[in-house]
Each structure stands twice: as C-alpha cells, then as structure tokens.
C-alpha cells in the first residue's frame, strides 16, 4: 500500500471518528447543565474534541515517511 493510500485511509478514519464524536449518543453525554472551569461542559467538549480532531488531521498529513 502506498503512503498516499495510507494517509487517505487514516483521514477517512478520522472523518468517521469525527462523526462519532459529534453525534448521538456521545454528544448527549455532555449535554448537561454542568460546567468545567466555568464553561458549560457541552461547549468545552465540542471545542476540545474539534481541536483534537484537527490536530490529528494535521499530524496525519504532515507526518514524514
């Protein structure tokens, strides 16, 4: 399998992971009126998961070799 295909498959996997993270039922777990460091837990979760996902995408794309 070429490096191109490997990256493609990793990115597809990340897309599926994103679908899982930003969907029922995972999302429902955080849909509660509590807070983390003063920030509503749902908002904190969405933005953190989003940032992590982007980080993983950058890692897959920029990784050498």
């Amino acid at each position: 399998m070429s490096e191109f295909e490997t990256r493609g498959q990793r990115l597809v996997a990340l897309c599926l992971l994103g679908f899982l993270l930003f969907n029922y039922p995972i999302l429902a777990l955080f849909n509660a009126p509590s807070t983390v460091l003063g920030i509503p837990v749902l908002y904190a979760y969405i933005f953190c998961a989003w940032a992590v996902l982007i980080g993983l995408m950058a890692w897959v794309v920029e990784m050498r070799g």
Partner: protein
Amino acid sequence: MLQGWIIVSTSFAYLGLLFAIAYYADKRADAGRSVIASPYIYSLSLAVYATAWTFYGSVGRAASDGVGFLPIYIGPTLMIALWWVVMRKILRISKENRITSLADFIASRYGKSALLGGAVTVIAVIGILPYISLQLKAVSNSFTIVLQYPDIVMPAKLGAMPLLQDTALWVALILALFTIAFGTRHLDAAEHHEGMVAAIAFESLVKLLAFLAVGVFVTFGIYNGFGDIFGRAAAVPELMPMLAPLGGVAGDYSNWVWLTILSMLAIMFLPRQFQVAVIENKDERHLNKAIWLFPVYMLAINIFVLPIAFGGRMHFPAGSVDTDTYVLTIPMAEKQELLALLVFIGGLSAATGMVIVETIALSTMVCNDLVMPVLLRLRSLRLNQRPDLTGLLLGIRRGAIVLILLLGYLYFRVAGEAYALVSIGLISFAAVAQFAPAALGGIFWKGGTRRGALCGLLAGFGVWGYTLLLPAFARSGWLPIGLLEQGPWGVELLRPLELFGLKSLDQITHAMIWSMIANVGAYVAVSLSGSPSAEETRQASLFVDVFRSSRTGGGARFWRGTASVPELHSLLARFLGSEAADEAFHGYARTRGLRWPDEEFAADAEFVHFVQTQLAGVLGAASAHIMTASVAKEEALSLDEVRAMLDEASQIIVYSHKLEQNSQELERATRELRAANVRLTELDRLKDEFVSTVSHELRTPLTSIRAFSQILYDNPEMAGERRAQFLAIITKETERLTRLINQVLDLARIEAGKAEWRVAGVDMRALLADALARMSQVFHERRIAVHLAVPERVPAVEADVDRIIQVVLNLLSNAAKFCEPERGRVEIALVEDGGFLRVDVRDNGPGVDARDREIIFDKFRQAAHSPAGAQGSGLGLHICRRIVEHFGGRIWVTSRGGEGSCFSFTLPRAEATLSRQAA
C-alpha cells in the same frame, strides 16, 4: 468619530486596498511570479466559506439556540478529511479536462451534455441569488446601524431607503466593477483569477481579525473571561436552556446530524467553494496544508461566537436589538468607535468576498453552460464565421455579472425583512446539496448516465423548491399561508412542511430527507434502467479512472475523424485570440519536437483533443465539443466501439502489469538457470576428469599385472627365482589396485554423505603414538629418523578415531615416501592452538612447490613437480581434507623450496580435557 463620511471613506479605502492587492497579484501573475501559489493563500481563500452570514448570523443563531450553528463548521471539518480521497480526484479530473465551473464538471462527466450544464446553472443561480441578496442586506444593515451612532436603532424601524441612497445598490455596483475588473480581465484557458484570489485571501484575514477583536473585547474587556460570562449567564433563568441546548432549543439530534451532512456537501458544491477549491487551485499539493489549516480557521472564527451571543443577551433587553447585529451593536453600546468601525469593515469583507467569488463562478456558468451553447446552436447568428469571439465571451460574462448582482439587489429590495431572505443561508445550502449525487456519483460510479443525472437533479430540486422555497414564499406573504396549513387543494398529505405526513422534524432536515431520496433515487433508478451512450461511457471512464486514463492516452484515444491544422488554428484564435492560439500551437509543437509553423504536424486525434481541451478551458466542455465538431469531421464511435476501446485499455493495463511481473520472474529464473548450468558444466567436466583419471590409474597396475601374467603363462619353463620375482610384482600391483579401489569407494561414500562416522572423544597423544607404531616398520626400512613431540596434557577432540588415524597415516606415509633414505628426518608435533589441536608432520624432503600447495589437496592432483617414482593415487590428501573438514578442522601445507615441507591439520578441542578426566 463615526460620522457618515468617515465610514464611507473608510469603506472606499478598504475596497481601494482590495483593488490594489488584486491588481498587484495580477501583475505578478503576468510576470510569472505568482503570489497565490502557496498553501496558506489557498487555505485562506477557502475561508470565503465564512460569509456575512457567519460574521453576523452565527452569533444571532447562537443567541437563540446555543450550539445549533456549529454543525455548519464541523461538517466542513469532517468533509475536508475526505478531501484527500475526493478532492484530489476532482482536482485531477478538472485539470485534465480544463473544467471551468461546477456546471461544466457535471456536464462534462455526463457526455458533455449542454442540457445538464444548463440545468445545473439554473439551479445554482436560483439557489444562490437570495444568498447574494443576504450579503448585500448585511452590508446595508450594518452601514445603517453604524450611521445611527451613538443611538442603536434597528434598520427595520427606519423604513425603506430611497433607491439612490441605498447602500446595498452602491455596494452591488462597486462589487460588479471589481468582479468585472479582476474576474473577466482576459480570457484565460486555465480560468485562473490570481488577483481575485489574493484579494479574497486578504479579506479572510480581515474578517477573522475583526471577529477575534470583538470576541476578545467582549470576553475579556466587558467580562472577565469565558468562565465569567457563562457563570453570569447561568444566573439568568431565560438563558438556562442554552447551557444544555441539544434536544431543546438547539433542536433534535437528527437536526444536528442533517445539518452536519448538509454543510459537508455545501463545502464541496457551493459554486464559490468549487471555484476557489478546484478552479483556482494552482497545485494539488496545496491540499495537504489546507486539510488542517482551513479547519483551524473555522475553529478560530467560532471560538468567540458563544461568548458574544451570551454577552449580547445579557447586555440588551430582550427584543430591543436584533441578535444578528450583536457583533456590531455591543462595541457601539460600549462606545468603542474604532472597534465598531473594524467590525463594520470585517463584515464588509465577509460579504464582499462571498459576493465576488460567487458572482465570478455563476457568471462563468451562465456564459459557458447557458448562453454560449444556445448561441452556438443558433445558425442565424453565424458565429462560426466571426473571426474573433473573445470580445463576445467577455461581454457575456460581464453582462452576467452585472445582471446577477442587480438581480440579487432586486431580490433584497423586494424581500427586505421577509422570512424568505433571513433563512436563506441554509436554504441555499440545501439547493447546492442537490449537485452531490450527480457529482460524487459521477467520479466513483461509471454506471451513472446523463438521463439519470438530469432526472435526479430535477427531482431533488423540485422537492427542494416545494419543501423549502414554497414555504419561505408563503411565510413572506407572497403565497397564501393556507398552502402550508391545509396543503395544496386541501390535501393534507401534501403539506410542504410535513410531506406525506413526516412530522416533528425541522424544515431543513425534512427537506433534506425528501429531496435526497428523490434525487439519489431518480439518479440511480434512471441510470440503471437505461444504458449510457458512447460519449457518456467515454467520459465516465475518463472521470472515474482519471488516475489511470492519463497513462493510456487520456481522452485522445477515443477520437476518430479528419481535421486540418489551419482550420483548428482559426477556431482556437476565434475564442482565445490569435496570440494565445499561436502560443498554444507552439507549445504543442514543442512537445512533439517540431517547430511550428515551419514544420507541419498532422491533425491527429491527440491534436484535436488538445485543441478541444484548450477551448473547453474558455467555453466549457459542452460548447467546446460543439465547436470542435463544426471544424473537425468526427466519425461517430458506436457504443460498442467505445466499450471495446475501454476494455482494451483496461486489459492492456492489466496485461502490461502482468507482463512486467512475468518478465521479472523470468529474468530471475534465467539467472538461476544460468548459474545452475555453470555449476553443472563444471561438475560434468570434473566427472569426466575423474572417470578418465580413475581409468588411467586402474590401467597402469592392470597393464603390468597382465604383462607379467602373460610372461609367466608363455614361459612355463621359467626359472623359479625369476618366477618368484614376477609373482611378487603382480601381488604388489594387485595390492595397489585394491588400495586404489578402496580409496575411490571411500571417497564416493564420503561425497555421497554415506560414510559412517563414529564420533567419540579422541586422545590425540595415544592416537599419534599408535599411528607411529604402525608406520615404524616403514621408517625403519628406509632408515628415516622419526621424532614425536607431544605436550603432557592435551584436551580431547571429538572425532572418529579410525578416520583420524587414516589421515595421520596418510601424512606419515607421504613423508616417508618423499624423504631420502638414510638422511631423512620426520618430526611429528602436537600443539594446542587456540580452540584447536594442531598436528604438524614435518619432513626434510624436496618440499612442495608454491604453485602446488593448494592443488595437491584436490582430487587426483599430484604435485606436478613431484620427484620421479613417487607413486600415489592422488586421492589420499583429498580424502584427508574431506575428513578433517568434516570434523570442523583445516588442513594445509607450508613449505620452503628444498627445505622440506610441513603438513598441518587442526581439529577443534572438545569441552573437557582428558587429563582432567583422568584426575
């Protein structure tokens, strides 16, 4: 300082800056030093996705439903992860086929169908026009609001402006000017607008900075960070539902999912996104960085949306200020004039960026896929005979730009505050989502046909119009509202918002479900029920197998017919201008190693394809096809022929791959065979040599035995003394014969691996003494002095006693043979040498010549310089070597000419020494 003239002049200064940037980038592009050939510019230009709807509307939406706006930005993040697979393919297809727009892409895929291209264009214009209006409205509203400073008054309360004082009109006109200046400067076969892209990238930076500035001001200036805002919001009872909004104010989870899917499709098929992502792309590799940079941009522009929304809700009494204007009104209420101005400019950049790119994309579609195909078919216009059509093309595009912007303005004037405008963002998304089945299906599925794509598109668009546009019009009061409540003709099952009784979904989800069912269903069903034409089959193969087809000759291999080079030249000159046409011809000739026009080349299939592709870059595939056909007489290929060609091509690929594999295997096999052959030849030669040597060795004693026997037989009267002498010779020769045969048999057994080895611990001291005892008679007879030197304790070796004795005896008898009687002296020494025991047998014979030292251990090789009379089979030393090597030792000879020789062999020592065992 927020007087009208300052705002107006700042706006003009900003637009002037855009003009300057675009102008500079265009000049650099002309000089061949592109400023936009960078993944960062590419990523920023993708951010044209964030419009005024994002800039003002996100906060507005967040203020009422919390996280409901987020799928619009999370969806593209998920989609862009798939770009590595999907967008790379679209980019490659578009570059090879010189695709000029989304309509062109879809039309080209389904047999260069002008009808399909036209349908896509119409849908895009209808779907996007209100979206453009929304941008004009945003600029106009924000301008009006800023103008009222220090009061905060909503524009709706001010009533409609007179036409000539309406900011939106002036914005529309200025943008038309900009778009014409940088979108239709000249006809470019690659359809790149570098100046425009540079300006868009700059606008993306401005709107991000402006939004972040407001965000930081609200979060850290007015409040003390995120925790403070949310903490105070939690104390406000009416804001409570927004802290866990899913399943509540933000709608159902299904709503969330469909919004995500919708945005995933929008990021690919909004005409402006297709324009910046595909048409303006300079290098496929820019995709790599964009895959994560663009999501970072979206994350950044959304971080402060919720704080601003909550801040606004707490800042203004409910209902006094439109939530969509919080971004602007909060700084105004806080008397932050500079910040308010920056926000206004940010909103302006978000709106203008979208309008400019969208208008270019739509005008290209209108020109190439709507107007030109019609004009070219109208024979009465005689377009075929006009020498230069570049002016006409540019004119149509410029006209389309002005028309689209004025239509957008008109819609804004008519719709105003109506529902049909406010909710248009997502409605536009849903319209362009209808392109997804035909476009995505087209690049992965060869079975999709033109009729299927057309039916799917129309069905999906029809359902979209019925379930989204119709209700929007009804709510705006343009259609009777009863249509929504009772359904058309009172048929409840057909109510547009609850089609076939599908209830409890929000309208976007509802519309997406039904339109996608209709669209995909019609596309697949109609495609499968018919069969594609030759042209469609060919294009399907070029699109789906784009990474393969370039290796098998691309589109050229499907063309058959006759054409002439001058005619093709004049055709190209009409649409590109004669200079560009000349340049294209020069370029093509160079790839053939020719100098045009001095050297002619044939108008073969490849060349006709080249011309058609050049034309397609300006006209779109459908029109280019019509135009080329008018000059080149193409023989129509039947479907069977195209299929045969495709089969052939794919088989050729498979075959050539197999062939390559086979030839590699063959090469390897050949190499192995050759090596085996060399070895066999050598072995054969050795065998022949062996047989001849053995026969020779056997014949010598046999000859003498026969001769002496004959003499004895012929002379029965022979004297007893002589008879005894002869018989002794015969006996001796027979012994020699027996010994030889024994050795041959012995060697054969060793070589065949059938020799028996009885391995045991051997005490070399005893072994040497034993061997010497057996030979003592010989040495004694020849009067040769023998000296044995062994150390007191030696380790044992693991070996076969009989075999080692055989070796020692052989060396001793050789020594005895070669020493001169009387003066001869043989020394035997046993030495411990590292992990080995070494036995040296030294004599003072003639020595072994340097050339012979290796070969004497070979089969049947005796030293060429051995003294006359020394007899032997030539097998003895060879057998010794086999035996010693069998036990892991080594045998060799050292010698100095004339000073005797020393035969040595080693054997590896066993673990325990004998002396210790004895102790």
